[in-house]
């Protein structure tokens, strides 16, 4: 058992190494020195205490989105719509933040609660059709991302624009802020929410019969069926929970960092979260590590844009290469199988 895990872990490390090597070649191709880029990334991510706080600030939404993706992956569902849930959750939290005045604390909780509801509601239709009619959830959630981004932009610019502002809502009231941890950074309690969520979800999967049921449905649906699990309802609930956490990520980002909703406020965090969860093999605790890794890359890339001629999207390339090489590891285990064998994905 342990040696299996160890082998899986070393496999991930090798895959990351291969991807970094390929990334280095690409950096050479765009005319930069890989060593310089790496040092800049490291300096940008961990250079001083403000940089480290900045890295943790970037890690927070990736971690929460990663947990959202983990919940889906464990239950055999690809929630690729986390990006959209994040945007709607972010807008919902901002709306509560600027349109109501409530006592401090309660205001924040109400905003987060509505963000959670918005995220869950947004995924409810794809989840319903996935559960009831087996409609491919990958495509439906991806397409709903585009609608979510445009819809929140519409809300922001046409319905709730700050007078005199440009594509942003009025600021939320201070009673809804997530408290900041340090004076020198916008790093806030959202990080603790993310960590608690990751550990909490891991415990649920490990110690509750419901969590066990989800894992079984994800890995062996037929077996779960015969074991008496209501597979359809569970699939629906899993996607709904995943969407709820995605919405929470948006709420945390709004209440903790921006204190308002603006057009394109958190680009790519949903996808980064999904990638972090895939790299962590669907384990919420391992997602803490991978989210930190991607958070550091993102944070470092800000300095990269300033200090080198390379674009910050080079880290997106590296992330994609990591996932590709991790996914290719299967070769080692499966060589020689019949090609007609089981297909893991079909619509």
């Amino acid at each position: 058992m342990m040696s299996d895990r160890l082998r899986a872990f070393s496999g991930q490390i090798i895959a990351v190494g291969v991807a970094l090597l390929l990334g280095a070649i690409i950096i050479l191709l765009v005319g930069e020195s890989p060593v310089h880029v790496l040092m800049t990334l490291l300096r940008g991510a961990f250079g001083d205490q403000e940089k480290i706080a900045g890295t943790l600030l970037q890690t927070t939404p990736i971690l929460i989105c990663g947990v959202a993706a983990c919940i889906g992956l464990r239950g055999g569902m690809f929630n690729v719509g986390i990006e959209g849930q994040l945007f709607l959750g972010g807008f919902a939290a901002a709306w509560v933040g600027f349109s109501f005045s409530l006592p401090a604390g309660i205001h924040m909780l109400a905003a987060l609660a509505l963000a959670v509801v918005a995220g869950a509601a947004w995924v409810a239709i794809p989840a319903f059709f996935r559960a009831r009619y087996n409609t491919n959830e990958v495509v439906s959630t991806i397409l709903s991302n585009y609608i979510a981004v445009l819809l929140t932009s519409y809300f922001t610019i046409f319905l709730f624009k700050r007078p005199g502002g440009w594509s942003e809502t009025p600021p939320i009231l201070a009673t809804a802020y997530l408290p900041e941890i340090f004076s020198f950074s916008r790093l806030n309690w959202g990080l603790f929410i993310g960590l608690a969520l990751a550990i909490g979800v891991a415990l649920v999967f490990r110690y509750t019969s419901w969590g066990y049921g989800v894992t079984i449905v994800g890995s062996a649906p037929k077996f779960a069926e015969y074991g008496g699990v209501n597979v359809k309802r569970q699939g629906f609930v899993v996607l709904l929970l995943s969407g709820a956490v995605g919405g929470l990520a948006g709420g945390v980002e709004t209440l903790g960092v921006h204190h308002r909703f603006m057009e394109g406020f958190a680009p790519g965090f949903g996808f980064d979260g999904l990638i972090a969860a895939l790299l962590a093999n669907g384990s919420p605790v391992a997602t803490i590590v991978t989210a930190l890794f991607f958070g550091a890359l993102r944070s470092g890339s800000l300095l990269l844009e300033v200090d080198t001629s390379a674009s910050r999207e080079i880290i997106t390339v590296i992330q994609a290469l990591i996932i590709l090489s991790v996914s290719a590891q299967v070769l080692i285990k499966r060589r020689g199988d019949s090609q007609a064998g089981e297909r893991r994905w079909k619509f």
Partner: protein
Amino acid sequence: MEILDKLINVALIAATLRTTAPILLVALGGSFTTKAGIFNIGLEGQMLAGAFFAVIGSIWTGSAFAGVACGVAAALAFALAFAVLVVTFRANEVVVGLALNILAGGMTISLMKAIFGTRGSIVGHGIVGLPKVQIPGAQALLGSWAPLISGFTPIVYVAFIAVPLLVLFYNRTRLGLYIRVVGEKPEAAEALGISITRVRYTASLLCGLLAGLAGAHLSLGYITMFTENMSSGRGFMAVAILIFSNGDPLKVLAGCLLFGFADAFSLRLQTFGFPSYLVLTVPYVVALTALFALSYRARPKIIKETLASMQKLLSVDRNSAPVDKNP
């Protein structure tokens, strides 16, 4: 009535054909992989790579057709990577497809910055767009309806001619048949001695070819520029179409015309002063609605009947019906 006349006219139909062409090409490309039993969510990235390298090729060579060739080559490289990972390495199709899409997005932006030093878009720099083909005699024959058949770029014609060709391909050629067998009954294909690996590679590369053409049409067709993520979900819409058409070329055409119309119509609405953000959601809403509506219709009846009788026999909980992966 006058408004309706302004909204729906020959120009709108011609615009529909123009906007249909890229999504039709990429969906027809995806039909190869769908028929071969591969779920190809990577169409979006292939198309985006095609659009970017078509522009690069057009600038470097000064020829639109060489640009198209470059775009196709880039899309083929992505398709090859997809095939290597999915067919040979047997990695998860969804993971590989999504990762290649992300790679295409990041790579095009990084290269844009490295080559042109700009972010956002490539305009000018001597990009040569595709010429428009004027069909001789169209004006005399059809009068004011001539824009329906004449004046498109060559890729639009290729897209529509490809539909009947693909019908013939699947029904009348050996390779077409092989692709279908591999997709529908891989065990049978293996028993017949068909190399599943080779067939799936071929299907994937054919897919890259058409996706590259679709991308080139985006950046060298009616507008000659490249912008970040300019494929804007068309590849995903194509996958939605492939799901409910099962890759049949004629059904793909019908679905794509619907989206082309939604696209052209929403552009029209924009000029009438509807908020652009809402108008831009129209194609995605149409895609989702069609996906949901048709999956409701296509729910497997036979399986349901079998289930009903099984449930009677075993008197198990009604809701706990086994999930079948084939709708």
